[in-house]
């Protein structure tokens, strides 16, 4: 049986989202899922053609308490994606105070590209919490 595959695509400002991406990939590998990590800058559209899971990540931009949104470069990346990707989709973000409207906005920019994300992961410091791990377990069941 072929093993499942995942790609984790991140946009990081100071390295925290990048670290979070690495932690997600390592956890998936432990679960037997072949995982690749790439930044949006290095992403190639071939990378997502055949994967089973796509994790999209971006740091939370906004005014701390309100108007959280993905950064402009990530939005451009989302717009450049091909339509109707069939892989199961997850979103992840790192934040300082709260994620607020971050996931809603990420989903908005991915509309038509992927189905609505069925897993939302968030972390302040890029570490993968036990709750995160439980959510990933359910996502890949």
């Amino acid at each position: 049986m072929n093993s499942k595959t995942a790609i984790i695509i991140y946009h990081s400002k100071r390295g925290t989202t990048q670290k979070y991406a690495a932690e997600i990939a390592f956890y998936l590998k432990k679960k037997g899922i072949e995982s690749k990590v790439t930044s949006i800058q290095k992403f190639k559209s071939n990378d997502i053609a055949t994967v089973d899971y796509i994790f999209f990540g971006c740091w939370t931009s906004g005014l701390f308490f309100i108007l959280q949104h993905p950064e402009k470069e990530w939005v451009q990346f989302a717009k450049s994606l091909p339509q109707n990707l069939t892989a199961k989709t997850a979103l992840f973000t790192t934040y300082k105070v709260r994620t607020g409207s971050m996931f809603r906005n990420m989903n908005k920019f991915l509309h038509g590209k992927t189905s609505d994300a069925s897993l939302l992961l968030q972390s302040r410091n890029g570490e993968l919490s036990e709750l995160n791990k439980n959510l990933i377990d359910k996502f890949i069941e």
Partner: protein
Amino acid sequence: MQLITQQQINGFVSGSTIAIAGASRKEKSFSAEVAKHLAAQNYKLWFVNLNFEKSELTDNKVNSVSDLPQDLKHLLVLTPATETEAVVNEAIGKGINNIWIQQHSETTAAIELAHQNKVNLIHHHCIFMFTNPTGMHKFHRTLKSVFGKMPK
């Protein structure tokens, strides 16, 4: 998370030569700040950066950990988190047995790899705190001490 002891830290900072993986060329980068500080503490330094051009490769600048001298046993890792595991793996292959992964560069994968190979590993700590800090770093160290966050 496994607690880091003062003895482990002493084992690292007692070295006289340290290689810095993820050494940036930019003078205002964090790694340049670290290098300047360690040089001021009389450490002999080596710099590892995959992107060094051939012309930049001088006595103490190399492209990879495997190019470091055989007797070098202390590595400070300042790489982006996605590169840390590979650097630690290379260091272990080279026989480097004292590795400090600067806070924010550490990943579970790199930490587990180092533990499996019985390396003296320090992680989730800032090297400034343990090498005669000055200025803001000294203030951070004081705060850590006050709140009982320093290794014992």
